[in-house]
């Protein structure tokens, strides 16, 4: 794609009209302004696509197996570990990394920090897709996925934490769709419709904050249903929801840094002027925010240990593992963030962000799987479960990339073709 863009002056497609004044058709927009042949050729040239192909070649049949033969055919069907990778990674891991939407929405729309505007749309998209795919993972994991809407329409258990999660994720998903719609409107050439969204932006943003606070926290609170099963170091019935909420803040920020870094590195042709010119500055800004959230998080973690008086727990094997997780997943990236921001070293901040993302996923997997039933045997997921989890993530990647290629997320849409910037 890079080469094609370099060759032809009308690429990349970033406006409703061509240079000669005639509109791009939808088909052309979908094909990125290439001919079908060109499009196919650039697809095949990309080694990443071959890797994806391999993943899907095995993963999609597995998915079919899961739906036709049952959940037990692709997992260990454990009654002791009712939640496996699909939820441990897909729900508990994806959702905090998708806090980016509400964080940047808040920063830009609520606090009026226009200087983060060029990355806002990416953060919103990252949020929307993360949540959407968390639901996809859920659909794979639920015993009766066709009843997904039951807690909304058929039968209510309002005292249950999951009830709250269900409602909030559903509502928040629609909020996020609304927030991403403007880019879509521009792309289909209906910029005028944006006005409807613009009017309610503030409302959407505040709704986003409330819903995010509650459901990010609720995901943590879900584990307080198992006070005797989760290792005490990973569970604090008082602070669990704050732990999850607070770590979602730096998790979300770090994920935007990672995502923007990848886009900047691998899809440079798609990046607009404002995005490229401001990316370094914004990365540092996000890193700064993340480091503040991290220090807060560490303090609350300490408070939780002190509150439950678990100091001696830190000495055992589990304690070591805990310290390892916090050290690699939080303390190290925090220091990197801090020094990187102070010295203006963007590279460091990006490494820190990557570590943070790994740290968040690690923490969630620990809570849901590794340190769950800590007095019992350890559950090693079935290879099919692992493969399916990766397949779904690959699907997420494909959709993410598809949208970033086309919709005005990291560039600005123009009504008429203007000379390349």
């Amino acid at each position, binding site marked *: 794609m890079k080469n094609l863009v370099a060759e032809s002056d009308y690429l990349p497609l970033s406006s409703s009209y061509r240079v000669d004044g005639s509109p791009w058709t939808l088909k052309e927009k979908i094909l990125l302004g290439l001919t079908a042949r060109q499009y196919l050729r650039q697809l095949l040239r990309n080694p990443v696509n071959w890797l994806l192909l391999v993943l899907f070649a095995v993963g999609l049949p597995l998915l079919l197996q899961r739906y036709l033969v049952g959940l037990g055919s692709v997992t260990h069907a454990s*009654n002791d570990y009712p939640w496996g990778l699909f939820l441990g990674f897909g729900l508990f891991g994806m959702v905090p990394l998708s806090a980016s939407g509400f964080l940047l929405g808040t920063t830009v729309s609520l606090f009026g920090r226009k200087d983060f505007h060029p990355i806002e749309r990416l953060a919103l998209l990252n949020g929307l897709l993360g949540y959407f795919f968390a639901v996809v993972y859920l659909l794979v994991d639920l*015993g*009766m996925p066709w009843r997904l809407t039951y807690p909304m329409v058929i039968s209510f258990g309002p005292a249950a934490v*999951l009830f709250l999660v*269900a409602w909030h994720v559903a509502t928040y998903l629609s909020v996020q769709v609304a927030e991403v719609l403007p880019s879509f409107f521009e792309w289909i050439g209906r910029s005028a419709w944006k006005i409807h969204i613009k009017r309610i932006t503030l409302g959407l943003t505040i709704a986003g904050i409330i819903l995010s606070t509650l459901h990010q*926290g609720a995901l943590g609170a879900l*584990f307080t249903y198992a006070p005797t099963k989760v290792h005490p170091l990973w569970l604090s019935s008082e602070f669990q929801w704050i732990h999850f909420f607070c770590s979602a803040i730096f998790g979300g920020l770090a994920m935007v840094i990672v995502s923007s870094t990848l886009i900047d590195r691998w899809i440079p042709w798609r990046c607009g002027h404002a995005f490229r010119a401001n990316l370094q500055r914004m990365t540092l800004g996000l890193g700064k925010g993340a480091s503040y959230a991290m220090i807060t998080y560490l303090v609350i973690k300490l408070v939780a240990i002190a509150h439950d008086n678990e100091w001696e727990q830190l000495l055992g094997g589990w304690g070591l593992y805990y310290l390892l997780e916090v050290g690699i997943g939080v303390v190290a990236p925090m220091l990197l963030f801090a020094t990187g921001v102070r010295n203006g070293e963007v590279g460091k901040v990006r490494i820190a962000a990557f570590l943070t993302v790994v740290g968040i996923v690690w923490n969630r997997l620990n809570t849901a799987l590794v340190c769950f039933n800590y007095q019992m045997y350890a559950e090693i997921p079935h290879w099919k479960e692992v493969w399916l989890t990766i397949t779904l993530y690959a699907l997420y990647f494909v959709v993410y990339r598809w949208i970033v290629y086309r919709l005005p997320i990291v560039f600005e849409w123009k009504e008429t073709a203007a000379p390349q910037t």
Partner: protein
Amino acid sequence: MGEKTTRRTMLKSGVAAAIAALLSPRQSSGHQVKEYPDSMGVLVDLGRCVGCRSCEAACNAEQGLPEPEKPFNDMTVFEELEHGRQRRTDETRYTVVNRYEAPGREHPLFRKVQCNHCQEPACLTSCFVNAYTKTPEGAVIYNQDVCVGCRTCMIACPFYIPAFKYSSAFSPRIQKCVFCYDTRLKYGKPPACVEACPQEALVFGRRQDLIKVGRRRIEEHPDRYVDHIYGEYEAGGTSWLYLSPVPFAQIGFNTELPHAPILDSVKNFLGIVPMVLTIWPALFAGFHLLATRKETAAGEAVDHPEEEKR
């Protein structure tokens, strides 16, 4: 100006209230467990159980469960270990009897496992579609027509009882003991397992009476029982109660369960929900006004929005 001050003060008090609520100490314990005065129950006297597995067979027949690989008179099942653990309830069996060698005893002890029909069931409170019901008779029953299969109830049950029918793609469900509610309990009859027990190790009756029976047995034979009725308080109290000749920890019981219902540890979170719902909108709308009105000050004041969010 005056308007601004009021808003400020309002914000401040809002934040203060939020912080106070967060830091306030644990509510002076006194958890409330729902009372079911007419709740029935079963008293299991482990000293009397000989491990004949009649109850397993009776349950299997009563609930129409699939025939097991090994017949019910095959005692090699006691040696079966999965992941180093003895048998547990699953989609093919709602109750199992396991054998334990307690230190210093000539004969092994047997422990029957099934749903304990908690007074404040964790499975029930964690279910987001309310698939579980605690009936006045004491049974915790399950409605498969609304269950979504999220398996939170399995996470929540402190006794590892509910099992999921993983083997089914189109009609999976939770499977667990329902106290023979539909077929027996509803009509005042004891569950099938109790009726099948040749040793009278299982006694059916009103929970309150059973506690008295248990106490009396302990008093009359202090040499035969440890002074504890398991289930009287565990996890908020259960309808099934146990007497044991040896400390409960030696025969596979979890003796670290809190006496408060599981729900109590979730209440911390449930308590903040209304707070967030009411305070957040005003708080952040206020922030927005402050931040955008004084664009210049906004630069430093709200450098890190994350900080204010707690």
